[in-house]
């Protein structure tokens, strides 16, 4: 149990995020490309979560 807890804590602390999904905004310069990877590699990215369901 302790080991599981430690592993969970480590995975939380060192968690890196990523996704690669198609840009659906036709007015965006990266429309139909995949973001954030690979289009915005080497960028600081800000992910805006709008209205939630």
């Amino acid at each position, binding site marked *: 149990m302790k080991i599981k807890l430690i592993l969970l804590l480590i995975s939380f602390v060192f*968690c*890196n*995020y*990523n*996704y690669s*999904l*198609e*840009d*659906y*905004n*036709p*007015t*965006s*310069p*990266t*429309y139909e*490309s995949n*973001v*954030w990877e*690979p*289009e*915005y*590699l*080497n*960028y*600081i*990215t*800000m*992910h*805006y*979560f*709008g*209205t*939630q*369901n």
Partner: protein
Amino acid sequence: MSDFQDELRNDDGYENIVIIGVGQTIMEGANNSFCANSDLPLVMDPSPDLPIRNQFSPYYDSHALVILGYDGNYLGHIGVSNLGITQKNYIRDILEEHYEQSILGDLNADSTLNIQDIILLVNLILTNQQNPLADLNSDNIINVLDIIQLVNIILN
């Protein structure tokens, strides 16, 4: 939000930052509204599993902005339903601390130009992808001329 991105890029000089909207496949009205009022990229979090929101838990919330560094590490998050001076300053403080000026041609962001960058540049050209750091001769086209320029820089 797109105005704020323009501010950060054009006024503050943070060229390599991007704000990405994360919609939901079942929220067509909200997605359309985002597209109509913004030129920011919009991705769809597939409903009902919402894997992106699960990945960003516990930081995502309604009108939350989650800020991540170059390697996808968490830098901060803030509610931006009212994007005022307090929220903008919070974001600017994070950028000031973590933003690194990019080196032209350094496609893997390791602060050196080497064979790995050439491989990535070739891959960019073959897959027809865009990256402003890959346009070494500033002609707005990424092609073999940029490879030649990068090779010359590395050899010199």
